């Protein structure tokens, strides 16, 4: 995975360098002007997008349908904090979306998370927070019950979110790891419920270097999460290093099961965190 990432970057770097030298050779008016005149979006657009290679890696030659309302994505154009970038995914309730892959193209490990929605969960939206390491497209690919794939994307300006040290207060982070909180919200649409699951976890990216040993601090993050309601599965997640510290998942759903929420999460070190939320929690 890391090797792939490096190769990808190198080949893109070479492509960029070639483009730049071609421009240098051609542009009599002055190459420096041509280079500095590009906005970050133009640079990103000009660079051979990581998506070109990610798409076949992740989805083979399956068709990805663009430009529908099946899945929509919202993220800030410019992140206020690259380590906590809110991303909201919304789904067309008519389309029965059952699986979503969230890809942050330019991150070292691009697949941020894969979510699977249980049959009958009727997921309407799902929000989480991610780390963004460089100016990037964020792609979201939805798979509907009939096996079709739908894609949408947005561009986010942020940098350094993965290498940025996670915990502002590591002592508190260590002490409270595994603590979970569930909040429920009222919604305007009658059959739709909304809730937020929060998990205390450093979700270390594995990209921070210890200056003394010069070794990377090992990645330590939530890999699997499953959320049930009234004993029935609602959704599950397979996560990567791009999910922010203290993972948060806010979701709206139509399933009418009564009974308590139950969440079970496990991390890269094999720790399991589990909680049944009896009654309203906030």
């Amino acid at each position, binding site marked *: 995975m890391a090797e792939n990432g490096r190769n990808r970057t190198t080949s893109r770097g070479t492509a960029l360098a070639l483009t730049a030298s071609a421009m240098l050779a051609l542009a009599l008016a002055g190459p420096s002007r041509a280079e500095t005149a590009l906005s970050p979006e133009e640079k990103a657009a000009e660079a051979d997008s990581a998506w070109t290679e990610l798409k076949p890696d992740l989805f083979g030659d399956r068709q990805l349908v663009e430009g529908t309302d099946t899945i929509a994505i*919202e993220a*800030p154009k410019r992140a*206020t*904090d690259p380590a*906590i970038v*809110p991303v*909201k995914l919304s789904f067309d309730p008519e389309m029965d979306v059952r699986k979503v892959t969230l890809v942050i193209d330019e991150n070292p490990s691009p697949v941020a998370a894969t979510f699977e929605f249980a049959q009958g969960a009727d997921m309407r939206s799902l*929000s989480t*927070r991610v780390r963004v390491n460089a100016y990037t497209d964020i792609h979201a690919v939805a798979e509907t019950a009939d096996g079709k794939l739908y894609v949408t994307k947005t561009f986010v300006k942020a940098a*350094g979110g993965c*290498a*940025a*040290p996670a915990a*502002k*207060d*590591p*002592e*508190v982070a260590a002490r*409270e790891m595994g*603590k979970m*909180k569930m*909040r429920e*919200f*009222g919604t305007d649409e009658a059959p739709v419920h*909304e809730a937020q699951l*929060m998990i*205390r976890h450093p979700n270390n990216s594995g990209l*921070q*270097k*210890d*200056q*003394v040993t010069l070794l990377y*601090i090992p990645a330590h993050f939530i890999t699997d999460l499953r959320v049930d309601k009234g004993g029935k599965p609602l959704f599950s997640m397979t996560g990567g290093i791009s999910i922010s*510290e*203290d993972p*948060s998942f*806010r979701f709206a759903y139509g399933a009418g099961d009564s009974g308590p929420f139950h969440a079970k999460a496990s991390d890269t070190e094999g720790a399991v965190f589990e909680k049944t939320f009896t009654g309203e929690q906030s």
Partner: protein
Amino acid sequence: MRGSSARNAVCLAIAAMAILVVGPAKETAAAASRFEEIAPGVYARHGLVAEETPENQGAIANIGFVVGDEAVAMIDSGGSVADGEDALEAIRRVTDKPVAYLIDTHMHPDHLFGNQVFKSAGATIVGHRRLPAALAARAEFYKQSMAAQIGPELAGAVSVTPPDETVEDERRIDLGGRTLVVKAWGTAHTDNDLTVFDEETGTLFAGDLVFMDHCPVLDGSLKGWLAQIPDLMAIPAKRVVPGHGPVSAPWPAAIEPERRYLETLAADIRKAIAAGIPLADAVADAAAGESGKWQLFEDYNPRNATAAYAELEWE
């Protein structure tokens, strides 16, 4: 109008003469002379209220030094090797006593990227007990992010230098005839904030526990910061050298604007969380009433609001 332009012309003429007289070799001396004596034996340099750039050499934090009978203590080393060298030059213009200590008020690059200058000069570097770990986790990131700000040349010259000795709670440093009280705080602006109090003159070097003019920056704990403000205010100082803003201000009045900002931010974010407003929407309106009261507000307030939301939703 006329008078002012005439005055400008005179100023320009004087400046031109000064350049002719002093010559280009005195560039560092000019920078060094920006230190002023704010109390007997206490010197401070006003940091620009601005982002770090190659042109300002990262000299955006207020830094200072205290001269005792036997030795000198530097408080914060500046935002680049060049900035640290200017500070050392300033000390040498005042005294040839040894610079026995450099005290780092916290981990941020604008306060300690000049550390190596003072290490080479023989100073013992003193920091918060959590400074070594905080720096170890961030050094790589800081080198990268600072290259983007002060430029690869100035950032490349920096060898991130951790403290030699750390302070658990409080430590008294004797400079001969005057004592500095170094106090380690709980998580506030960062998780490794120190203050330095010169008992002799009642001068408090607050580091970034006190911001003036420059929008406060939250990189630790909003609750922790607010909770410790009464203890900070109880320090019997006459004046404070805030981490950013004027070089000297009356204490404890100087902390009022910051307290108002932090309280407003906390109140707005708590209200949003209670109302179920998601992070992305809450950040836009948080502490909006403080806009216009701070420089660099748009650069730091949204980020502070994001951090505050992530912290306070766990209450």
